[in-house]
């Protein structure tokens, strides 16, 4: 092995060599720089490989032929090797990226770049405090030089502010170092660590100064105005270096210091870290400039890692895994984003819409964001999982809350940005055509996915990149060049194939959900045959969602469950985002979903008590003081997905604005994920009491309220798809209510709603979507009279609304019948009232739906519309058949589940003798009902046909109109504000209270961010004062604590 000292020596040598070259030899200089960086990268890489394969042990490198402390020594362990590799690789890539600039600036700039990466490598490897200072100062000087690479004139001032701040830092550091030396008699970090007791007693202030100086080098919030200015104005390749490499190096330095400081100082680091994480993320909310936003995000991420570093005592041996996961994900993601920003011409966030023309870069963008946020399968996900479990196990609940809050805010602004890129007007300036810059970005993407794989392998869990459904979804990324129809066929085959493959392993409950998700998903995908072209991005997203769902229902431990949950959330977010006007709705969907997901994460973490591999069935064993809290967290998390009232505001927009075939997916299928979670939760944890309140009772009320308000709001919608979306809220409310009853029939009813809601909501969304497609509007009052033009769609809606309203003989009645039987044994009666109220309200919106669209007056502009496309109609007709079959023989699906539920709640099972279904209280014979109703209907119809055989078919204006005639169809179609009197009576219940509440919350956060970020006045002196004040405040708090 080549000695690691050559990492430093090589760069230094290269820099000197550049000094010897003649100025015009730009090409040669550049080649030398690249060779040097390649060499150091290779060296670091080979050491990392050797160390991680166990071929060699960590090495100590002595200098000056003397043992420490009399000479500086360096060390290269596996962590150091990884960091050095990261630094040099980033350096190399940035150098590639900077080709034009470096050619222009010449060999000096290249030398400075080499020095920079050398200094950072030195910070990582050195074990000597003063040497650390020297390397820091070298970083400062080279930074000062590299800032000038930027073409932005403002960079100059930023550089100067940086120098001012680093002057202050270096003063603190030097004074600290000397007193630390004084206290311990050594500058060697290991010696100091050994003597840490003495140092901390005598030289607490000294240690504090060193510590706070290094912390300041991390650019922690809020003493970091200068750093933000650099991020904003420096060349993006350099910003990438600063964020990824310099940040990482400083973190290693702080880690070294904490070996001395011990647990007390780790807490300080944790607090600073978490404050930085939350604060910077909050401030980032108000950013409009991409690089400054990335700067804030960097600060936040570094804060997070600082927090991890501070938690190393409780993380134990998983420390490196966690810290490394977060750090590498941050480094790759942030560097990648900075590099990407160099390709985008505009600086406003919306200018990133320029990426839209380039799917590869868009994929890179998405990958980087996922890396930053820590979504599966990236390293941050595994790392955060363990981190959260560790801090939850040690009851650091405030930190847990802050961590999750910060992460949520971060996801919010990052995905808002992504939404801009996908949805905003494309800026006139295209992305830079430079090939090698793109190559650099691609390397970062590759690195990200590679890390994802490595972290998956390192984690104690299953590698998510080994999961067949996920791989299947990712495979569509490679197949994007195929025509949409081919991909669609593949997707359907995949879903059905996976279903057939997993079929034997399902228990009855899983089978029902699998049937809906996989077979049902395939059915909805039939509608997707309608779209031609290539439909970029649709299939990876959709299949990712399906993959998540498929994995969710078979997940056995909390990790797999949560990973699946996140996958389906992300997949569905991308899906929803595809809708034409869906940008804000997709965002609110994502924020709510991730918020819910974080609650679930917190719940699992609390339940697991540090055990990162936690079987779901073990939820049953969670002990008393904790159990109700776990239950509440998980339940609220799942209810976010089912859009329970209060957490529902994302749903209407997301479902309504989605594409025609996406709406049924996200409504008919995705909502069931939440119900599945609740099933799982209730089956394992059962009833829980919090402060004497039965949580199931609370859930019942929430379900009932959702049913009521969902239905009521649906009745007041003018937009057909919104109406259906609100109705989903109501329907999910029923299901939630059924579950919360905690009796046999309640669960059966919930399951019945699961099946029914899938069928009729998918069908209705498809037919309404088809109508909207043909008429070009979703506003119902603009339609009307389409029954003869779109008869099949009409039949679908007709069957759908009869089923949904619960009128016999269709399947909705089965749900109502089970409901009545279920409430007979329920303990609580009051919530029923709300359910009773909401029942008839369903008629309001259902009638309105079918009337305003298909009945009434046909509009002029729709006189020539055709029936919806074949591929949209086909699944609808299949659904009609399904509904009829399920109405006749509910036992097909329910019988086995009924038996299965008996395992949990034996009381109250149904009897399925013959054609009649009998409960403790009543009976019901679907086939007889259907036959009787059918016979009566046919007889009367035949009679009418006989007596009325000569009826004259008339047209739309042949109505009695008080002896007048109608004027125009528009003024004759009674549709707008259809329930005006009802609105007068009960409209107040549909006031958007929750919308306003959440709007107020987000407004508050934004206003706070907008106001508080004004502390960054732009004045270098003010920044220096911030820094000093930060030092003082930290000191006072530390001493005070």
């Amino acid at each position, binding site marked *: 092995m080549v000695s690691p000292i050559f990492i430093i020596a090589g760069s230094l040598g290269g820099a000197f060599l550049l000094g010897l070259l003649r100025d015009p030899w730009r090409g040669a200089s550049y080649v030398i720089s690249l060779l040097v960086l390649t060499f150091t990268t290779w060296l670091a890489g080979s050491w990392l490989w050797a160390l991680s394969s166990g071929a060699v042990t960590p090495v100590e490198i002595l200098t000056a032929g003397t043992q420490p402390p009399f000479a500086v020594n360096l060390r290269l362990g596996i962590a150091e090797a990884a960091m050095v590799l990261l630094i040099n690789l980033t350096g190399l890539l940035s150098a590639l990226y900077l080709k034009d600039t470096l050619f222009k600036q010449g060999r000096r700039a290249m030398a400075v770049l080499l020095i920079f990466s050398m200094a950072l490598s030195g910070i990582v490897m050195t074990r000597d405090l003063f040497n650390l200072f020297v390397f820091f100062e070298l970083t400062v000087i080279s930074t000062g030089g590299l800032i000038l690479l930027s073409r932005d004139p403002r960079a100059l001032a930023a550089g100067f502010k940086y120098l001012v701040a680093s002057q202050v830092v270096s003063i603190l550091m030097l004074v600290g170092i000397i007193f630390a030396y004084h206290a311990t008699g050594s500058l060697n970090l290991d010696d100091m660590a050994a003597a840490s007791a003495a140092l901390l007693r005598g030289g607490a202030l000294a240690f504090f100064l060193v510590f706070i100086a290094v912390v300041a080098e991390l650019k922690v919030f809020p003493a970091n105005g200068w750093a933000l200015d650099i991020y904003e104005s420096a060349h993006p390749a350099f910003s990438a270096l600063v964020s990824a490499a310099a940040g990482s190096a400083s973190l290693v330095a702080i880690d070294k210091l904490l070996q001395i400081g011990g647990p007390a100082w780790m807490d300080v680091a944790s607090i600073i870290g978490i404050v930085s994480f939350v604060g910077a993320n909050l401030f980032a909310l108000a950013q409009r400039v991409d690089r400054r936003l990335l700067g804030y995000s960097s600060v936040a991420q570094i804060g997070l890692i600082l927090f991890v570093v501070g938690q190393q005592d409780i993380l134990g041996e998983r420390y490196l895994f966690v810290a490394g996961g977060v750090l590498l994900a941050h480094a790759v993601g942030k560097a990648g984003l900075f590099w990407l920003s160099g390709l985008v011409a505009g600086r406003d966030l919306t200018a990133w819409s320029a990426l839209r023309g380039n799917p590869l870069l868009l994929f890179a963008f998405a990958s980087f964001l996922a890396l930053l946020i820590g979504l599966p399968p990236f390293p941050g996900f595994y790392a955060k999982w363990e981190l959260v479990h560790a801090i939850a196990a040690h009851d650091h609940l405030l930190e847990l809350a802050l961590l999750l809050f910060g992460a949520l805010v971060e996801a919010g602004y990052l995905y808002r940005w992504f939404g801009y890129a996908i949805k905003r007007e494309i800026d006139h300036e295209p992305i830079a055509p430079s090939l090698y810059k793109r190559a650099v970005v691609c390397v970062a993407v590759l690195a990200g996915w590679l890390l994802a794989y490595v972290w998956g392998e390192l984690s104690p869990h299953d590698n998510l990149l080994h999961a067949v459904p996920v791989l299947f979804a990712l495979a569509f990324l490679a197949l994007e060049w195929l025509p949409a129809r081919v991909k669609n066929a593949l997707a359907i085959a995949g879903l059905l194939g996976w279903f057939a493959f997993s079929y034997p392993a399902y228990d009855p409950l899983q089978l029902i959900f699998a049937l809906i998700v996989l077979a049902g998903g395939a059915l909805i995908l039939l509608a997707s045959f309608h779209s031609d072209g290539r439909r970029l991005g649709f299939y990876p997203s959709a299949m990712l969602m399906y993959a998540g769902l498929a994995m969710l229902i078979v997940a056995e431990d909390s990790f797999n469950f949560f990973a699946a949950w996140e996958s389906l959330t992300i997949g569905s977010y991308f899906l929803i985002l595809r809708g034409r006007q869906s940008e804000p709705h997709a965002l609110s969907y994502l924020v709510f979903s991730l918020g819910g997901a974080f609650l679930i994460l917190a719940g699992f973490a609390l339940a697991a008590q540090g055990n990162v591999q936690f079987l779901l069935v073990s939820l049953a064993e969670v002990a008393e003081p904790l159990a109700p809290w776990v239950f509440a967290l998980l339940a609220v998390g799942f209810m976010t997905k089912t859009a329970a009232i209060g957490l529902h505001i994302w749903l209407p927009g997301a479902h309504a604005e989605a594409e025609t075939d996406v709406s049924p997916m996200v409504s008919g299928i995705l909502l069931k994920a939440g119900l599945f979670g609740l099933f799982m939760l209730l089956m394992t944890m059962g009833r829980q009491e919090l402060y004497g309140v039965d949580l199931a009772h609370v859930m019942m009320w929430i379900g009932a309220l959702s049913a009521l308000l969902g239905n009521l709001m649906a009745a007041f919608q003018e937009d057909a798809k919104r109406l259906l979306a609100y109705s989903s809220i109501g329907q999910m409310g029923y299901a939630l209510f059924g579950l919360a009853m905690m009796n046999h029939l309640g669960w059966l009813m919930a399951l019945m709603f699961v099946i029914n809601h899938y069928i009729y909501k998918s069908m209705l969304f498809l037919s309404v979507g088809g109508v909207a497609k*043909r*008429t*070009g*509007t979703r506003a119902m009052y603009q339609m009307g009279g389409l029954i003869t033009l779109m008869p099949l769609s009409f039949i679908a809606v007709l069957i759908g609304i009869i089923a949904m309203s619960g009128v016999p003989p269709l399947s909705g009645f089965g749900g109502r019948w089970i409901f009545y039987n279920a409430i007979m044994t329920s303990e609580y009666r009051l919530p029923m009232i709300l359910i009773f109220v909401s029942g008839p309200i369903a008629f309001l919106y259902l009638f309105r739906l079918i009337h305003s669209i298909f009945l009434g007056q046909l509009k*002029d*502009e*729709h*006189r*020539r*519309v055709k029936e919806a496309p074949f591929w949209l109609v086909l699944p609808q007709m299949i659904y009609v058949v399904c509904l009829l079959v399920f109405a006749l023989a509910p036992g097909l699906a329910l019988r086995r589940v009924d038996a299965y539920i008996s395992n949990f709640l034996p009381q109250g099972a149904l009897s399925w003798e013959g054609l009649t279904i009998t409960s403790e209280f009543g009976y019901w014979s679907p086939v007889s009902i259907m036959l009787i109703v059918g016979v009566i209907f046919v007889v009367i119809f035949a009679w009418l046909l006989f007596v009325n055989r*000569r009826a*004259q*078919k*008339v*047209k*739309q*204006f*042949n109505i*009695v109109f008080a*002896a*007048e*005639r*109608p*004027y*125009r*169809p528009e003024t004759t179609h009674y549709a707008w504000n259809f329930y005006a009197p009802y609105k007068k009576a009960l409209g107040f219940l549909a006031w958007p209270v929750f919308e306003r509440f959440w709007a107020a919350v987000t407004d508050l956060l934004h206003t706070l961010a907008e106001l508080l970020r004004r502390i960054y006045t732009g004045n270098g002196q003010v920044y220096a004062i911030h820094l000093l004040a930060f030092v003082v405040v930290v000191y006072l708090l530390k001493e005070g604590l």
Partner: protein
Amino acid sequence: MKDELDKRLDNQPDGPERRGSLKDIPVREELLPRWVKGPEGQEYVVEPLQDYFCQAGPTVQTPAYTRIIEDLFNWARAESLWILGFGTGCGAIEMRPLMTPRFDAYRYGIQWRPTPRQANLFVISGYLSVKTLKRAIRSYEQMQNPKYVVGLGSCTINGGMYWDSYNTIKRLDDYLPVDLYITGCMPRPEALLQGFDDLKKLIRAGKAEGANHYAEHFDWYKANQKRVIKDWDMPDYSW
């Protein structure tokens, strides 16, 4: 704008003819053919009179069943007179007392319906201005066969005191097939009851086939109607 429309109409197969017929009678603007653009960009002409209204004419509805059933029906029609609640003139005031305890026409199976679809008796209550005639025709045509018209008061017979009015029709029978006149100015409620009783007899005897008469002589009635109604803005037969 109108010329443009003419040009486009000319391109349609029977365009020129139709335009000619359209130009004969003054047509309300909302009934003029107009170009409409569909949601997918296709353009086509909407002709309100053709597209909104059924163009079929009335047909003679012969008794459908055997004599004995038809007699039963005629008896039922006679005993169940549903009057259209449409007071066309000042005579309407005389119908109100029929609903009161003093006269109580309900005793005789006479009731009022608010919609012509369900009524089978149209009482033209007194003078009929041209403007109202149009509404009366429309309402009459919207009633179902068999249907009966009773002219109330002298004005429906010969114009009565308005015989030289510029604004009323003189002889109702020229415009609608009248089954029975009740004379007087105004006829008292007792006279109305007497009239309805006579009408019942006519119906029972199968002689009240005004609707079929109207269908048979539809052209004649229509010509008469159009002679006085100058702003004919509806299809020839209002279903």
